[in-house]
């Protein structure tokens, strides 16, 4: 039977073991390398796996809270990894395990170190200097592409170019982008494209781990990119991945798709601005034509207006003049009537004819006027009208004068016919006592008293003898 004082509970011994393990400085911060097996993620989000080598294994756990900072890849069974963490006891399970703070693929640390060294070296050589960066051409008609022929990168690039600038000719140099021959292949592609029409070259591949992307950190690629006469856009990996190829290239794109967009954006923009300018030219020309149309219409209406006004004035003139002419005509007629009572139609006829002719003339002129062009014609016609008017006035006045003359003449001959006038020429007029005119010798008897009128007065005498003509 054992000594009672030497007996411990399970908890006691477990606590004791735990205290030994946790106070050991080596076990508290240790890097363990091995292969992942039994990998699983619990519902609560913690990661469990077993790290093993050929003979042994150790259970590992990475708590959810550590994953974000400590795990940058998706682990799988069989992955060779280095786990950084501490060894502790899992009391409930009665076993010790490795509590992981960080899980890295084996060999990655070495690559990062190399990357860092190379970066510094190239930077010192000035290979990343802005002064070596060639500007991308605004307009690209041929685009060189160096990538894997079957990868997503080539699909994305073709798709993007087709969408934005389908007219851009793509020349693909198919090459491996991963593995030991990749760097040489990529470098050859860049060199081969120098002799083509390509104005820009995209070097790229899809995302991956640092080992996957490693070819883009190797000297052959870096040198080929640096020496390229043609501007190079590096579109390697996803947004967060940076390679030395990116740094030495003329332009960095976060993905192959972005690289393609950058390469053809100018071409797309040009196409757009051509279309915009086209539309602008069209609308400007239309506006111009419209404006001239408006001006033309305005000019025409401005032309029409004075013309119509003149025509109206002319018409008014004619209308106003007619009563005036008729008035003077009526005046003349009344004078004539008063003086002589002579035949009116004889005088009226030619005047009416004149008036008709005048009217016809006016109508004819009116027609000719409206057939012809404005301003000067209007003035001409106004002159002619004034002239006509003057002529008409002169004619009528002359007529009036003439008629007046005739009136005077008629008056004189009328006067000559009056009996009193005859008397002055030696003729006389005889009547009986009762004033009955004696028209023939038969009216007179011997011894009859008669009154004879002579110029200056009359005489009364007695008939002494009556002798009849034989």
């Amino acid at each position: 039977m054992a000594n009672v004082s030497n007996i411990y509970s399970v908890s006691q011994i477990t606590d004791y073991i735990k205290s030994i393990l946790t106070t050991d400085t080596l076990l508290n911060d240790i890097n363990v390398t091995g292969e992942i097996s039994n990998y699983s993620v619990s519902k609560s989000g913690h990661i469990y796996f077993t790290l093993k080598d050929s003979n042994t294994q150790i259970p590992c756990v990475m708590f959810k809270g550590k994953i974000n900072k400590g795990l940058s890849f998706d682990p799988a069974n069989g992955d060779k990894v280095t786990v950084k963490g501490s060894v502790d006891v899992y009391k409930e399970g009665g076993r010790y395990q490795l509590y992981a703070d960080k899980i890295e693929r084996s060999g990655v640390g070495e690559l990062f170190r190399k990357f860092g060294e190379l970066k510094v070296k190239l930077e010192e050589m000035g290979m990343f200097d802005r002064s070596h960066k060639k500007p991308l051409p605004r307009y690209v008609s041929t685009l060189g592409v160096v990538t894997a022929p079957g990868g997503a990168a080539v699909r994305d690039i073709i798709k993007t170019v087709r969408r934005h600038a389908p007219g851009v000719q793509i020349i693909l140099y198919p090459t491996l982008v991963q593995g030991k021959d990749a760097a040489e292949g990529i470098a050859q592609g860049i060199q081969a494209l120098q002799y083509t029409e390509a104005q820009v070259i995209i070097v790229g591949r899809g995302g991956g781990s640092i080992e996957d992307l490693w070819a883009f950190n190797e000297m052959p690629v870096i040198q080929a990119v640096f020496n390229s006469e043609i501007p190079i856009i590096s579109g390697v990996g996803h947004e967060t991945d940076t390679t030395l190829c990116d740094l030495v290239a003329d332009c960095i794109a976060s993905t192959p798709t972005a690289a393609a967009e950058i390469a053809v954006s100018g071409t797309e923009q040009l196409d757009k601005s051509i279309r915009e300018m086209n539309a602008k030219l069209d609308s400007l020309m239309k506006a111009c034509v419209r404006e001239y149309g408006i001006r033309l219409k305005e000019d025409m209406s401005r032309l029409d207006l004075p013309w119509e006004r003149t025509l109206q004035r002319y018409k008014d003139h004619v209308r106003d003049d007619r009563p005036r002419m008729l008035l003077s005509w009526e005046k003349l007629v009344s004078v004539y009537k008063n003086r002589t009572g002579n035949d009116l139609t004889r005088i009226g006829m030619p005047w009416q004819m004149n008036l008709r002719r005048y009217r016809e003339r006016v109508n004819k002129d009116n027609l000719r006027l409206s057939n012809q062009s404005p301003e000067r014609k209007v003035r001409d016609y106004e002159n002619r009208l004034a002239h006509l008017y003057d002529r008409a006035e002169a004619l009528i006045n002359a007529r009036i004068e003439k008629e007046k003359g005739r009136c005077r003449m008629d008056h004189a001959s009328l006067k000559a016919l009056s009996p009193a006038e005859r008397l002055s020429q030696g003729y006389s007029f005889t009547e009986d006592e009762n004033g009955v005119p004696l028209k023939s010798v038969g009216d007179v008897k011997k011894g009859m008293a008669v009154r004879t009128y002579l110029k200056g007065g009359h005489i009364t005498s007695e008939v002494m003898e009556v002798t009849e003509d034989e």
Partner: protein
Amino acid sequence: MSEEAKKEMEEKSIDELLSEAEARISALEGGRLSLEAAFKAYQEGMNLLKASSEKIDMVEKKVQQLNSQGELSPFDEPDTEGDDGQ
């Protein structure tokens, strides 16, 4: 457009063509052109844009494949309806 004018345009860069077209547009925008000059500017502008457009030529091109000997051959395109991967 005459043959010489056409040839002259072909020799110009797309930027030259576009800036000349822009000049015609600015002249039209100025609104000081006579109708004849406006028509001329329009005609020339359109020809310039046509020439630029021909240079860009948005007709879809087949992808060519280049080998290390510098020889070109048609590239058998993979299905472009995929999404990101390797």
